[in-house]
Structure formats: structure tokens, C-alpha cells
């Protein structure tokens, strides 16, 4: 394991605390969703981000509302990291009128345009082209904004990745390819469906690449820093591959979709330990280096939990969408 302290030089304790808190916010929201879905509290299925929080948060921590992110089916974490409204996200997942998309989008389509979140996406790699467009628009505008595509190891096998890398390199676009390699696409290990190393795919296009431990918030922050600066300074695209692990199922209740196990429970447990889990790692660092005490951490945890509870309450108490809204925002024939 890469020790966090080797890196902390240009990150203050306050920065780290803020990042930690955001990561915790994602974790607690997702833990709630994982529990609530068991009782059918909301429509549809959810793909949880638990275990991957140290990727979205340290990257998005360096972004402004004018920067764009384009996300995936596993998009709640990206949404929260980029500053999306947690209450409205929760209400959206609960299918309520107060949801960020009025209940019409659902878990796989949370979007908050004002925050630069052009949307989660139900189509694997579907968001990639859109992020290229956002990068192109920023470049034309000359506003120094950057565009991020979050995508999985599985999505790296869609042809559009090649098209996107080529265009971004050719046109020198302020784009960050953020590949979250959690080792699985659904129920298949990456090694069974992927040749070579994903990060090497950036090479022939002349795109600088950064391979990081995606469960180390500081490691990710450092790589993201390089990539964001490159974008802001009109130096073109960057490619980050962050190695991580999805602690939950591909989708909650995945065993209703599956006829057999596809990964070893010991493997899953390993990634939940103090050495591997991105949140526990930060907590250990805080305590080992006397940054914060166990009590401080508990206090933060409680603050975050209260905020999540509020969001859940808001979602539960909000009304269903009005039936007439089904026909709104559609071209009339």
C-alpha cells in the first residue's frame, strides 16, 4: 500500500478533511440506498459507488461549477462529489416530484446542470461523446473550464473511447478521461474481456497518462491536479486510470439477476479492511498523525449522517410527481 503521508505536501489538513467529509457523504447516502432498496422503498435498481469514493471526490474537489462532468450508471457518487444537491438526488431516486429531474430520470439519470453535471447515463460509454462536446465548447469559449468523463473498465471496451481520445488529442481539448477500474464489468472480471492495459490505450494518441491507486484519495488528488492544470492551461487531454474495487454488487440485489457467484467473498472482504477501504484509510491517517481524534471523526460522521437522514426524510415526505408531468418536456406531435 502506498502510504498517504508521502503525498500530503500540497494538501492541507483542511483540504483532506473536506474531501473526507464528501467521501463520507457518498458512503452514507449509498449505505442508506442499499438498505432502503431491500424494502422496495423506491422504484428501480441502484448501482452503488461504495468503495470508489476516493476517485470522484479528490478530482471534483478541484473543479468549479463551470467545469463539466459526464457520468455513468454508477453515478450518485459523481453527482455528490461535483456538488449536486443531495436532497434532490435522494428525491429523484425515490421517484418524487422534488427530485432533481422531477422523478422522471431515476437513479441512472441524475443530472444537475447548474453544477456542471450533465448527467449519469444508462448506456455504457454513452456519456463519453457528450464530455468531448463539453470540452470542445469550453475550448471554444476559452474559459479554462475542463470536462471529465468518468467511465469503468468495462466501458473502456466501447469503440467510442478510441474516437474520443483521437479527437481530444487532435483538437487539444481540455478533457480528462477518468477510468475507474474496479476490476469487473457486471459479473465478468476485466481480465476475461480486456486485452492489454487500459491505461496504455492513451499512449498511441499521445495523451499523458497517470495510473493511480484509486483507493488513496491523495494519490488521486495528485494525478487529478496534473490533469486539471493541463486542461486549464490549454495543454490538452489527460488519461487517468484509477485502480479500485466495487464493494457492493454490480447492482443491489444482484443475486436476483445471477445464477452463481462470480467473485470470492474473501476478495470482497479484503477491500473493506483498514488497509484498502478509501474512507478507513483516511481515518487511520488522521488518527495516526494526530490530525483528528476518534471523537472528532465521530462528530464528522454524525454531521454527515444527519444530513443524509434529512435528505431521506425530504425524499420520503415529498409528493409523487403529478401525472401530467409525464407529458412535459417532450416535443408535441
Amino acid at each position, binding site marked *: 500500500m502506498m502510504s498517504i503521508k508521502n503525498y500530503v505536501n500540497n494538501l492541507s489538513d483542511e483540504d483532506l478533511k473536506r474531501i473526507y467529509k464528501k467521501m463520507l457523504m457518498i458512503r452514507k447516502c449509498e449505505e442508506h440506498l442499499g438498505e432502503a432498496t431491500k424494502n422496495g422503498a423506491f*422504484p*428501480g*435498481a441502484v448501482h452503488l459507488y461504495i468503495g470508489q469514493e476516493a476517485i470522484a471526490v479528490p478530482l471534483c474537489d478541484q473543479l468549479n461549477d463551470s467545469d463539466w462532468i459526464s457520468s455513468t450508471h454508477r453515478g450518485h457518487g459523481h453527482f455528490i462529489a461535483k456538488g449536486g444537491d443531495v436532497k434532490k438526488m435522494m428525491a429523484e431516486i425515490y*421517484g*418524487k416530484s422534488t*427530485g432533481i429531474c422531477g*422523478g*422522471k*430520470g*431515476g*437513479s*441512472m*439519470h441524475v443530472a444537475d446542470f447548474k453544477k456542471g453535471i450533465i448527467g449519469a*447515463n*444508462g*448506456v*455504457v*460509454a*454513452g456519456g463519453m461523446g457528450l464530455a468531448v462536446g463539453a470540452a470542445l465548447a469550453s475550448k471554444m469559449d476559452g474559459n479554462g473550464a475542463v470536462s471529465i468523463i468518468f467511465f469503468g473498465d*468495462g*466501458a473502456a*471496451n*466501447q*469503440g467510442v473511447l478510441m474516437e474520443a481520445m483521437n479527437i481530444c488529442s487532435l483538437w487539444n481539448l481540455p478533457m480528462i478521461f477518468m477510468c475507474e477500474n474496479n476490476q469487473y*464489468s*457486471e*459479473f*465478468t472480471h476485466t481480465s*476475461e*474481456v*480486456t486485452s492489454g492495459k487500459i491505461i496504455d490505450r492513451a499512449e498511441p494518441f499521445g495523451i499523458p497518462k497517470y495510473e493511480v491507486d484509486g483507493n488513496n484519495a491523495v494519490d488521486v488528488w495528485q494525478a487529478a491536479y496534473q490533469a486539471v492544470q493541463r486542461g486549464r492551461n490549454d495543454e490538452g487531454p489527460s488519461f487517468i486510470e484509477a485502480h479500485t474495487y466495487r464493494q457492493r454488487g454490480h447492482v443491489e440485489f444482484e443475486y436476483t*439477476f*445471477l*445464477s*452463481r457467484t*462470480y467473485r470470492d467473498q474473501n476478495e470482497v472482504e479484503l477491500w473493506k479492511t483498514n488497509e484498502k477501504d478509501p474512507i478507513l484509510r483516511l481515518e487511520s491517517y488522521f488518527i495516526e498523525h494526530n490530525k483528528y481524534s476518534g471523537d472528532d471523526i465521530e462528530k464528522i460522521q454524525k454531521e454527515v449522517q444527519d444530513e443524509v437522514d434529512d435528505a431521506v426524510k425530504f425524499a420520503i415526505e415529498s409528493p*409523487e*410527481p403529478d*401525472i401530467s*408531468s*409525464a*407529458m412535459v418536456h*417532450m416535443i408535441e*406531435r
Partner: protein
Amino acid sequence: MAQLTYREAVAAGIAQEMERDETVAFIGEDVARAGGVFKATVGLFDKFGPKRVIDTPISEQAILGAAMGAAMTGMRPIAEIMFSDFLAVCWDFVANEMSKSRYMSDGQLKCPLVVRTGNGGGSRFGAQHSQSIENWAMAIPGIKVVAPSTPADVKGLLAASIRDEDPVIFFEHKSLYAIKGEVPEGEHVDTLGTAKVVRPGKDATIVALALMVPRAIQAADKLMTDHGIDVEVVDIRTLVPLDMKTISSSVAKTGRLFTVEENPRLCGWGAEIVSIVVDELFWDLDGPAVRITTPHIPLPAADNLEDITIPSVDRIYSKILDVLR
């Protein structure tokens, strides 16, 4: 007769054909070791091994391209596109390649290939995982379009699709995978291009497809119980080729036509059927031909919104009652 679920009938149909014809192979995402995300292909990998039952990367264009290339050169591949919505990602192979190769080559090439896909709504999966796109497929000359509503039809029509010399898009309805039904024992092969009267009646005809078939039957039963209205339900089963004979003789008998469609309204398959009926059977009609469809919108995710958009038993019942009164 054996009791099988709709999903088990998929695996049974594929297994039957793989056993008799070694050129049949099956590829798709998570279809082999995992047995498919809808558990529709469980057991095939164990039975036929990794050479014939193949997990692919998430690369829909390569999946359909490879299936088509193999079909042109002597295999009979089955390719799975997990959700029919994702056919849009590789639609080039449907619209420009597999549908045209036999015609453009003046019959030199053939493309005996089946694309299986999970179609339809009802699961709150939102606008990109719930569409009914059978009408997109129907709009392209050169492909056959199949959408069964019962386990027996799944097995029989899937076998027929695999044996067919043309590309077939085989739409399995996601909300039907769990239903059970009788499936004939032993080899079972049905005939493409044949509709079925699944509930005889004399007062009106409902033409329905896939998930809309059981809903139409329920609505018809209720109309009989509540009002003594005797509705005939025709399960189209295959949109291309279209069995107008069965539809026409039903409409000629009842004088009334209703289509019940899950696809969005504009250019839904019902529009085609209504236009044929108006053209060929106008003088047999005793009233307007009426389409009951999903509105022309993407499917919303919230429970109450999805429920009001896809035709329900209640909506079919009240619409028919309104029109016939």
C-alpha cells in the same frame, strides 16, 4: 408438456438448436459464465463450453459485427444485446449491414443470425432501459421481427428463428421472464409469420404483442364478465413477416379492431396494421380502428408515471368500453 418459465424457455430453445446443429454459437455480455443478467441462458456454458457460448466485452458493435460476419461465412450465431435500448449503439449492423447483404449481393450472401434482446418496460429502469423498440426493427426492410408472449412461443419461435436463413431480431419481454407456461416436450419448432388467436370472441378484435397480450386477455375477460362483451385477442407473435390472414379474418368476423402497443405512439406497429385493415377491410369495419399505445414520450422512472404510460389492463378495458358504447 413441461412447465417452464419464459426465461427457461430461452435456454431450452437455444440448447435444442445447439444440440442439433454445431454451427450454432452464442455470444454476448455476461451470457456465458453468469448465465445472462436475466438468467435466460443459464446452463448453456456448462453444457456447450467456452467455444460455443462466449462472454464478450461491452462492445456492441463488435458483437453484432462478429455475429454477422460469422453468419455470412457459415455459422448460425445467436448474439445477445442485453437491453434492446442498446441496439441503438450498434444499429448500423442492423440497418445497413445484416438487413441488406442478401439483397445487395443479389442473393450471394445470406445472414442466418438471431439477435436476442430484452425489450420493454415495467421495471422502473428509466428511459434508457425500458423501451419497446420492436417498431424500429419493423421499419427496416430485410430483417424478421419476433416478439413472443408465452414460454412455448419463446422456445418454438426461437428455434424457428435460429433455423431461418435471414437475420431475425428476437424481442424477449423483460417483464415476462418470470411467467410460467406449458412447453411441448421434445423438439419444438414453431413457424415465423404466424399469429395466433389466443382468446376467441365475436364482438371486437384486439391485436397485441408480448407483454400486451396477457393484459389484453385480462381486459377481454373483464369486459365479458362485466358487460358481456366478447373480445377476440390475437397475439401477433411475429411482426415481420406479418400474418395479416389471421388478423383480417378476425376483424372480418368482429367488425372492430383495437391494437394494444407498448411502443411509443408515432409509427408504432399498430399504425401499420390499422392502415392495412382500413385499406383492405374497410367495408368490414363497424367503427373506427383504435390504437391504444404508450404516449409518444421516453419512459419516466417514477412508479406512478411509468404505470400511467404503458397500456394497463384498466386502460385497455375502459378504452374499448368507451369506443363500443
